[in-house]
């Protein structure tokens, strides 16, 4: 049930939202205070979001979400389908700008810099904050070109050998190089699902991002391919700030250091992952992660 929802939402993106009152959302206090548990060892904050609300036309999808996302760590967003995880993730690299009728309010900063500053170059921003989607979406080009594209348009390579080096390094960091080194000039869409997803991660890495956002990156993959991506996420954590949306509680527990639980557009609770999955502070978090609703 919850697995297909993001797809349908994407398809509905341009359809005027129908406002069916949701009885559950009516009951929610809008002044809900997120329950927060800090890390035992504080981490450096990279992304700071304050009172972020998002509207799709008349419908409010997020209510005053505030969260600090630390560097060199994986933050997982969990919650039932439609609770606003992808909406919030898209706020972090202004992908909502591309959705007609979407309106974002509040503050989001990367290292203290306002992401919604009108003077900010959005293309450059999306290089600094890369995104990996649910369905692997390589360009219909060669493996090499898929990775070379970003560095080329951002002018990151000064020579051909320079560019080659970036491509190879990115593929290595994405744990894909050994599998594709003999066919860099074959099309990327010919790879397996898991390889395509790692190719997309290599593509994101190639432009040296600071933050990598992943929206259910494994939901279209088999368990082995999933394990490889999880292993990769764990390696990337040392150098990047990673945010992952996942509908798999076990995945969140395995890959993340902090977990944020969303419900009905509200950030209910956020805290160290270990604590969130062994003894969360909020009853709603507990009920969701133990499979009592959603």
């Amino acid at each position, binding site marked *: 049930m919850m697995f297909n929802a993001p797809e349908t939402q994407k398809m509905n993106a341009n359809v005027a939202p129908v406002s069916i009152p949701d009885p559950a959302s009516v009951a929610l206090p809008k002044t809900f205070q997120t329950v927060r548990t800090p890390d035992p060892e504080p981490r450096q904050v990279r992304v700071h979001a304050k009172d972020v609300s998002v509207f799709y036309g008349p419908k409010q999808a997020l209510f005053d979400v505030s969260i600090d996302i630390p560097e060199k760590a994986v933050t997982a967003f969990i919650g039932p389908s439609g609770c606003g995880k992808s909406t919030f993730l898209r706020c972090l690299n202004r992908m909502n700008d591309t959705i007609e009728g979407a309106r974002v309010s509040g503050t989001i900063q990367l290292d203290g810099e306002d992401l919604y500053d009108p003077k900010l170059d959005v293309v450059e921003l999306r290089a600094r904050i890369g995104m990996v989607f649910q369905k692997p979406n390589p360009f219909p080009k060669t493996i090499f070109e898929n990775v070379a594209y970003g560095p080329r348009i951002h002018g990151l390579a000064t020579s051909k050998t320079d560019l080659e080096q970036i491509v190879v390094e990115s593929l290595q960091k994405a744990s894909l190089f050994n599998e594709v080194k003999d066919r860099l000039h074959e099309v990327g869409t010919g790879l397996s699902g898991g390889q395509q997803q790692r190719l997309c991660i290599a593509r994101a890495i190639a432009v040296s991002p600071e933050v990598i956002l992943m929206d259910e990156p494994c939901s279209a993959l088999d368990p082995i391919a999933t394990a490889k991506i999880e292993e990769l996420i764990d390696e990337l954590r040392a150098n990047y700030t990673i945010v992952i949306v996942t509908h798999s509680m*076990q995945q969140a527990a395995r890959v993340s250091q902090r977990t944020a639980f969303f419900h009905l557009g509200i950030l209910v609770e956020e805290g160290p992952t270990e604590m969130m999955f*062994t*003894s969360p502070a909020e009853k709603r978090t*507990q009920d969701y*992660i133990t*499979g*009592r*609703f959603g």
Partner: protein
Amino acid sequence: MVAHTVTSFDEELAAIDRIIRDMGHFSAAMVQAATVALLEGEQDMARRVIADDAVMDARQRELDERAITLIGKRQPMADDLRTVVGAIRIASDLERIGDLAKNLGKRVAAVDKSPASQTFAHSIESMAELVQHQLERVVDIYIERDAEALVPLRADDEKIDVQYTAVFRELLTYMMEDPRNITACTHLLFCAKNLERIGDHVTNIAENAYYVMTGSQLPANRPKVDETGTQPSLA
């Protein structure tokens, strides 16, 4: 507690709870029977207690299997995870209690039926009653998920230690009075030690139960009881 979306998950957890309850009541009955056997010199009853230990072992294995299957199948989280891991640990304490009750049963043959031995045996009677009562209580509290009730329960465990000290002194006195008492009293001393260790397992169970219910540890400072008094200082 809100039910799981998958109802068989609730049933599996309930089945594990039932085994804990059964093991708790069964081991308390073993302690009681072993005590009666000791006090009355009932050899048949003692042999039954010894044989009953196999039932405890089998129940513990069953619980372990169910718990491991549940973890594999459901990957429980939060309170469910604590419940399953806690149940494994509680069952292991209960199984040890079964072993200790069996040890009590084995001593019955050694403590003969002479009137003197019977008199000495009565020194451990109230201690055995208290241990058995604490054991039943901790399991009932666990089944009812009444975390607060565990705080005074653990405080009461101190009483067992106090009684053990008293029994130890009393038996020592009998031995000093007449060296012919030494054999019987030594066996009874081991019995008292077994009872005291059962009390320690009850404390372990209380601590695990508290963690299962709350996600935090039972408040650390055990209230001190003075050696002569019977009232713990904590209400």
